[in-house]
């Protein structure tokens, strides 16, 4: 009995040690990266100034984006429907700008970002076995989708700057930092590491009771002032519902050739007039804004109202809505969308009651 007992002990010892070592390495690695970050103390205003005065012309890096909006992962639905391929592509359903935008916002994505000065940028979304690129090179704006082998091209005029940029953390952060006004409490969290850089955490907490946003955390590179990460938590929750952050970053100017794009042979190339339809912008999530909707309210309580008939809601989203007073409600942890009975679409990071009040008030 003792012999077998000793044997079974001896038998599994190496495995136990190996498993322990692998587990320890896996646990320690992220911690050691976080170890000992101590930046000079700064007030919130000083960190904000650091962001505003940043002088970063060129950088490149990898961005990880995850979101947990309480919506089903539309990309997963698509993949589950057809194994390796995406048979739904035939329906034309998921190529609509709105649903492409939704897919970008809801799923988890890894992307490479290259920025060289104000006129050259490239966002490379690395999907499994596919890739989407948004490339801006001077006046040229390209969108390329490898799955469809489809390219969109737009030539920008002098005064037309694509808003939203690359949708990478630095652009998202700018969007939130614009909102900093008396309705926002700004504090500085503890220093930590993001993408191997020591960062200040700038925490924006809305003072409004009507918004769904609990807090927005912007990680600001302590040295360069470039926002390296954005995390948005819903009210009453500490886990971020949406986060987008660099996992590695380099401040060296990316190679010039990265911004040169020639559509490959056989690709469908569509010329887009940016003034005409803004279709080239369709990877950006604010598609609704491209339709010139009206905005009611300010800051965190802002509600976007899209006139009837201007915004097509993808069918898969409409199916997820629930009936409420005055229309159908599409509810996520960070955004509520009211499909009003009169055809208008109201959206905002606000409570249902506020949406209904705005709908009734007009």
């Amino acid at each position, binding site marked *: 009995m003792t012999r077998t007992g000793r044997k079974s002990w001896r038998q599994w010892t190496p495995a136990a040690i190996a498993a322990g070592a692998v587990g320890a390495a896996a646990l320690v690695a992220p911690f050691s990266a976080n170890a000992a970050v101590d930046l000079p103390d700064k007030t919130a205003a000083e960190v904000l100034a650091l962001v505003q005065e940043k002088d970063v012309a060129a950088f490149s890096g990898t961005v990880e984006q995850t979101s947990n909006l309480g919506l089903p992962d539309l990309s997963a639905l698509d993949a589950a429907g057809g194994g390796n391929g995406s048979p739904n592509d035939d329906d034309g359903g998921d190529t609509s700008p709105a649903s492409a935008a939704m897919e970008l916002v809801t799923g988890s994505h890894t992307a490479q970002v290259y920025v060289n000065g104000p006129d050259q940028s490239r966002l*490379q979304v690395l999907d499994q076995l596919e890739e989407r690129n948004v490339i801006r090179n001077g006046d040229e704006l390209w969108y390329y989708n490898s799955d469809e082998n489809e390219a969109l091209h737009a030539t920008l005029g002098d005064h037309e700057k694509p808003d939203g940029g690359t949708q990478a953390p630095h652009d998202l952060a700018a969007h939130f930092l614009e909102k900093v006004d008396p309705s926002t409490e700004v504090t500085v969290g503890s220093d930590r590491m993001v993408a191997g850089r020591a960062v200040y955490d700038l925490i924006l907490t809305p003072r409004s009771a009507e918004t769904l946003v609990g807090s927005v955390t912007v990680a600001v590179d302590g040295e360069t002032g470039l926002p390296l990460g954005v995390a948005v938590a819903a009210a009453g929750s500490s886990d971020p519902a949406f986060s987008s952050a660099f996992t590695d970053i380099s401040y060296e100017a990316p190679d010039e050739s990265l911004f040169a794009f020639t559509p490959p042979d056989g690709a469908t190339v569509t010329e887009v007039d940016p003034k005409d339809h803004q279709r080239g912008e369709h990877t950006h999530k604010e598609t609704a804004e491209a339709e010139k909707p009206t905005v009611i309210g300010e800051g965190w309580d802002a509600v976007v109202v899209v006139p009837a008939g201007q915004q097509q809601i993808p069918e898969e989203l409409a199916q997820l809505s629930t009936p409420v007073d005055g229309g159908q409600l599409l509810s996520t942890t960070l955004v509520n969308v009211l499909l009003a009975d009169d055809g208008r679409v109201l959206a905002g990071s606000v409570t249902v009651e506020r949406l209904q009040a705005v709908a009734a008030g007009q």
Partner: protein
Amino acid sequence: MSSKTLSSSTASRKSVGWRFLGSELSVLFRRRRTWALLAALAAIPVLIAVAVKLSSGPPRGRGPAFLDQVSQNGLFVAVVATIVAIPLFLPLTVGVVAGDTVAGEASTGTLRYLLMSPVARGRLLAVKYAGAVVFCLAATFTVGSVGTLMGALLFPVGPVTTLSGTTIDVTESLVRIALVCLYVTLSLLGLCAVGLFMSTLTDVPVGAMAATVVASVVSQVVGQLPQLEWIHPWLLTHYWLGFADLLRDPVVWDSFAANAVLQAGYIVVFGALAYGRFSTKDVLA
């Protein structure tokens, strides 16, 4: 290969180890079964190429990724065949070879004779594992090279469009295909270690083979369940389709590195399990 240094007779032991590996490989590649497995893998690109040649070409967006590009560029046969082979065919063949390593010898009664030769059990295990790794390499390069050949025979070959929309010339494309094969080989190393461990548990090779294949299937099924997302980065199969990063421009190496770390973890844990089990195993048959 193991690099234990036993100062007195390192050189001779080393040469015994290499000789042992040589004989292991010659036994493995002289088996009719090994060639049957490789032939079955080679049939995948052949079938794909012939099917695409005979049909008018599938519409965009149907079937495995890149299938629609095969008729324009034969080099894609290798890539499509690799995508098709990864979920089941490659793990199946690797499971057969890795599951057979120790259990096969035990079932035919030759394990006893192997252990009589002046070879430590750990070294025997390492040689067996190395043999299975060489088979992985042979398996993935069979799919890749037969795919390239069939593509070149039946379709025009030209510059390849990467996922990023840029174009790379034929030589660069062949390098990328070879890199994909290496990536897939790397992806299978963890499964090999699992198979080796399973093989030390039983004297019935079929059991070890089945258990290894089941391990890869279960891992892929779990990888499909969003409810178990927290476990996904730990799964054996997590990066299996990540080879597409090698078809981008510029090449993204992140998944290659992450995959290497993950597979190394599996090799260490299951290698240790196999060693613990095998070094104390009573070899009766």
